[in-house]
């Protein structure tokens, strides 16, 4: 089975986010350094729900809770899309 590429995951993530948050506008240019809280305006609960929708999309459990808890443990103020994509390539690919 061919692993997913980062480009593919970016597209899939965009689709899942559009379906999860239909009232939000993500049409502005996004990239690896786009921050989900500061730039996309998401809240922590949005990330939790996104995780559940990503698991549904990829059809498997992801260590998403551990991923989010590690952000907090590293005192990271925000999450860059590139980091989320790297996580998905690693675990959903």
């Amino acid at each position: 089975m061919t692993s997913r590429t980062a480009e593919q995951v970016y597209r899939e993530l965009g689709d899942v986010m559009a379906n999860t948050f239909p009232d939000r506008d993500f049409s502005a240019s996004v990239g690896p350094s786009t921050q989900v809280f500061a730039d996309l305006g998401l809240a922590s609960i949005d990330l939790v729900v996104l995780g559940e929708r990503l698991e549904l999309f990829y059809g498997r459990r992801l260590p998403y809770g551990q991923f989010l808890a590690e952000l907090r443990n590293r005192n990271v103020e925000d999450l860059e899309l590139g980091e989320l994509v790297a996580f998905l390539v690693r675990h959903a690919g």
Partner: protein
Amino acid sequence: MPEVEVNGTRIYYQQSGTGPDIVLIHAVTSNQAVWVFTGMVDALSTDFRVTSYDMRGHGFSARPATGYTSADMAEDFRCLHAKLGLQPAFIVGHSFGGVVGIHAAMTAPECVAGIVLSDSFFPGLKEIEPNFGKANVWMDLKETFQTIGVDLGPVVDFTRLFRTAANLTTQQMQTLEEKVGVLGRGWLRQLPKLAETTCGDDVLAEAGLTADKIKAVSQPVVALYDEFSPFHATCAWLEQYLPACKSEIIPAAKHLAVVENTIAFSAAVRRHLHRLTGVEVRNG
């Protein structure tokens, strides 16, 4: 999609793990993200089946105009419990979430095996908390709002907080968001939405959970209160009057132990849940 219709509203929940049922209930103005970001869900789901949910009006659950008393929320819990086919569950409730847990133990005892409270204030016990109105977390919030020239009033008043937030100018909201940071922004932005509901008054209503009713709760209760909590009198009262209550102080916290001292809080919750359920520790 993990949503269910219960008690006339829609509740969003998540579930993971296998084992005895644990239900996590957050505080007013919070949501289940607190259990995820602090690693509590992961820590507990190695040995338990963990259900976390957003109370009505919060997170991704629906936001009806009314029904925010602990009695209403306990009924939401009972209906969710039934819909998900849970066994009698241990509830871990932060602040008002703990009040909901105790209320459910009273009104739906068949659903509640025990309750772990995190720094809960009970409206039915307000007589023993003369300083409730000047709780430190409220004083901190007042101070933050004062920096934008807004007075939240002398005592804890959620309705005033929600309506004040709803009436902020764009500039005032932006200034507050800069102060609370990106993670606090989500919390701030939902406050005006709660102004459209009876939540503010309801969560401070006794709603039938009187001191005598609390005393009659026979399920095991663990009272985890924060070192700098404004509610130590409540903790002492619970240990004195409930037939099966153990208390413990979580150091270096002042109402949000799950966030302020996650390591100690998580260890205490897991230790007590393993003790109460008899489940062997499978991991760490």
